[in-house]
């Protein structure tokens, strides 16, 4: 795969997601959680907590993080990294806004799930 290739794919508009909320995108077996923060930043993470696979899309979004609904781990939306004393990382996908349209690149991801 060419490193320079970007494979952006439209998944909807920013208005589809409530502020401080998330929606899911299905991709085969995988679910990807798309987050929108209070200040309209967009992030994409695999919908799986590094702890016990809790669905992060169902958590409470605050500042740049989401708190997992199952056991309250706090995961950074930008890096997928568990915060504080917890250790683990969720897969993060490149994502960007073109006007209101959300574009995601599923060919690149960082981290393992």
């Amino acid at each position, binding site marked *: 795969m060419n490193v320079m290739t970007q*494979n952006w*794919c439209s*998944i*909807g508009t920013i208005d*589809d*997601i*409530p*502020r*401080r*909320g998330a*929606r*899911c*995108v*299905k*991709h*085969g077996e995988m*679910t990807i959680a*798309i987050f929108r*923060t*209070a*200040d309209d930043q967009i992030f994409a993470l695999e919908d799986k907590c590094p702890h*016990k*696979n*809790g*669905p992060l899309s*169902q*958590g*409470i*979004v*605050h*500042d740049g993080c989401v*708190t997992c*609904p*199952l056991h*309250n781990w*706090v995961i950074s939306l930008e890096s997928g990294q568990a915060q504080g004393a917890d250790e683990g990382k969720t897969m993060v996908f490149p994502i960007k806004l073109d006007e209101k349209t959300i574009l995601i690149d*599923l*060919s690149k991801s960082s981290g393992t799930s």
Partner: protein
Amino acid sequence: MKQKLVVIGNGMAPGRALEELVEKSPDQYDITIFNAESRVNYDRIMLSPVLSGEKTFEEIIIHGDSWYIDNNIMLYKGHKVTEIDREKKQVTSEHGQVASYDKLIIATGSLPFIIPVPGHKLPGVLSYRDLDDVTAMMLAAQSRGTAVVIGGGLLGLEAAAGLKEQGMDVTVLHLTPTLMDRQLDPAAGYLLEKELTNRGIKVITKANTKEIVGNGKVEAVHLDDGTVIPATLVVMAVGIRPNTGIAKDAGLEVGRGIVVSDQMVSSDPDIFSLGECAEVAGECFGLVAPLYQMASVVADNLAGGNDSKFAAQETATRLKVTGINLYSAGDFAEGDDREEIVLRDATSGVYKRLVLKENKIIGIVLYGEAADGPWFFEMMKSETDISEMRDTLIFGAAFQGGDALDPMAAVAALPDEAEICGCNGICKSKITTAITEKGLTTLDEVRAHTKASASCGTCTGLVEQLLSLTLGDAYDPAAITPMCGCTDLGHGDVRRLIKAKGLITIPAVMQELEWQTSCGCAKCRPALNYYLVCDWPDRYADDYQSRYINERVHANIQKDGTYSVVPRMWGGVTSADELRAIADVVDKFELPLVKCTGGQRIDMFGIKKEDLPAVWADLGKAGFVSGQAYAKGLRTVKTCVGTDWCRFGTQDSTGLGIKLEKFMWGSWTPAKLKLAVSGCPRNCSEATCKDIGIICVDSGFEIHVGGAAGLEIKGTEVLGNVSTEEEVLEYVVALAQMYREQGFYLERIYKWMARIGLEEIRSQIMHQPKRRKAYFDAFVFSQKFAQIDPWSERVSGKDKHEFKPMATLSLEAAE
């Protein structure tokens, strides 16, 4: 026969005297109080925090209505006594109420002094003495405008700071060159003036008021030197004089105050007087410490002991303006026979001065750093010879012995007799003993048991240090204080400020209360959301993004990310139709598990999030609504079979349980709320381990409160008995509402009860019909907005986005 005791005035002094009297000798007197103010006894000292918005009136009440009821005391509120007839031994109020006495207490306090300059009667000229004055000032402050405070003493400055806090433009006029000249020397007065000026309060000293002018209401204040200061409000705080009118009319001996012996008996042996209106040994007093001492003397004497006598003691003064540390005591005039030690630190604004005479401290002025006040004061009272420590004395207790400065060391160094709480005359050892003997661990408990820090509150820091010293690491003020890492405020403060400042959205709370994060965290957001839902049911829009997932999608999330749903089964009663509908849902959606819950209803497991609305649509057709098995709200009302079937049943426990559940479902509470009704004391529905439980008995219903059987097992306490189902409903609903208004988020009823005390709950719910009704009405009002089935709402399309993926991408699209 009981003797009749009548009290004129219901201020702080007689309040304390009666409190001690009913404790010492509960049934000796039939007590009647007349009070010109139409309210209960409150902490007058704390009016300034009410004015500045830091406290509410409710928080400064000393004896609530229930106290009078519990102690069988008749309180006539808003009844000013106009006549004392010593022949007939009776008093008459202005409304014509007559009461005869065996013993009479006159405690009419004092009247604010009004300088009789022209215009002093104009509307907008106020004094500063009672709650009415505070309310009037707060009202005036609403239209912003400019306030002139005449008098730069303790009261005047507290009023000025409060009015500034309320947004007014404030000028203080003071006659002499130094603010608070009765308590401060010119150097400290200067620092104080500078601090006030920095806060935007204008100070004019050597100001002689000539007249107040205005057309129909205050418009300006004119000074002798020609200065004109525009004003929409004028507060006169230039002094007080003992309120002796009725005593004089009754022919009692009156000097500056009502003349009493050191046993507080006036010239009539059956009439006592105490408080600011009394004069002992030629002296009148205007701070609570000596007044409380008078109160003890009166209580002792009325209870039959007669060896207790009043002896005037030195008192220290502090100014209760947040952020200003000031302490003064004793005599600090200059003189040939006196020496002084002064410490100044200009950069940190500290000034300390000790006045010595024959190697003993006789006067103390501390500004900017007042922690050592009590230590110096103790040495002053005990006339300690300080020649040994002269060189380091001014640096305070922590410095003695040459060790490095440690804030805690100052408190540790205080002798046992050192006075910590000046208002209540509580010394160090009394507090430390109470902490160890009674196992106290919090400030509130120390207040409740010793009264220390319960009046003006300036010694709070010292009391906290004593808690730390005595308990070591076991005292952790932080553990109870901040709500979460986003704020330093505790739940109690946040709840109060939401109401006091009228904050109606989460961003408003975060802005006004200076949250340290931009949008909170998973701890504070759900709590704030609940507080706002509870406090402003009709005005606040529930913020679903601040709710845990279960409350957001109205089902319980499971470990595999699927959901379970539990419909309401009112009082645990079901029918063939309902069971059939559940069976159909289980088949149609191929659910892997159906189970009876521990709460007398049925749980369906393994539902995919996308399927939830369809499951609810089917359940809804059969008449089911959400069982809210996920909510910090009303969960189940368990019942047993009761009179209809059971051979022991005394009342219709099933029917009553259903009534309660139908009335209360949908309400949000600080933590989960579970109820149960048992038909007899065999208690088959386990009512005695529920948040609220009802045990039916032959004569009616026993209401229980504060049980739990989860992480902790707690049996309930009996709140009281009532005789009809209607009463059960009213009392239980009122109780739930009181908890809704006061509980901290995630604090179940038993924890809330441990915090505020069963007695308080009982007194408000069982003994105060008006309160109870008000709680009941507030609950009913909020149900208008809360009792909406969340499932049917979502079946009709609400929050659609929650249940559907945003997009489904084919695998190729990504390659």
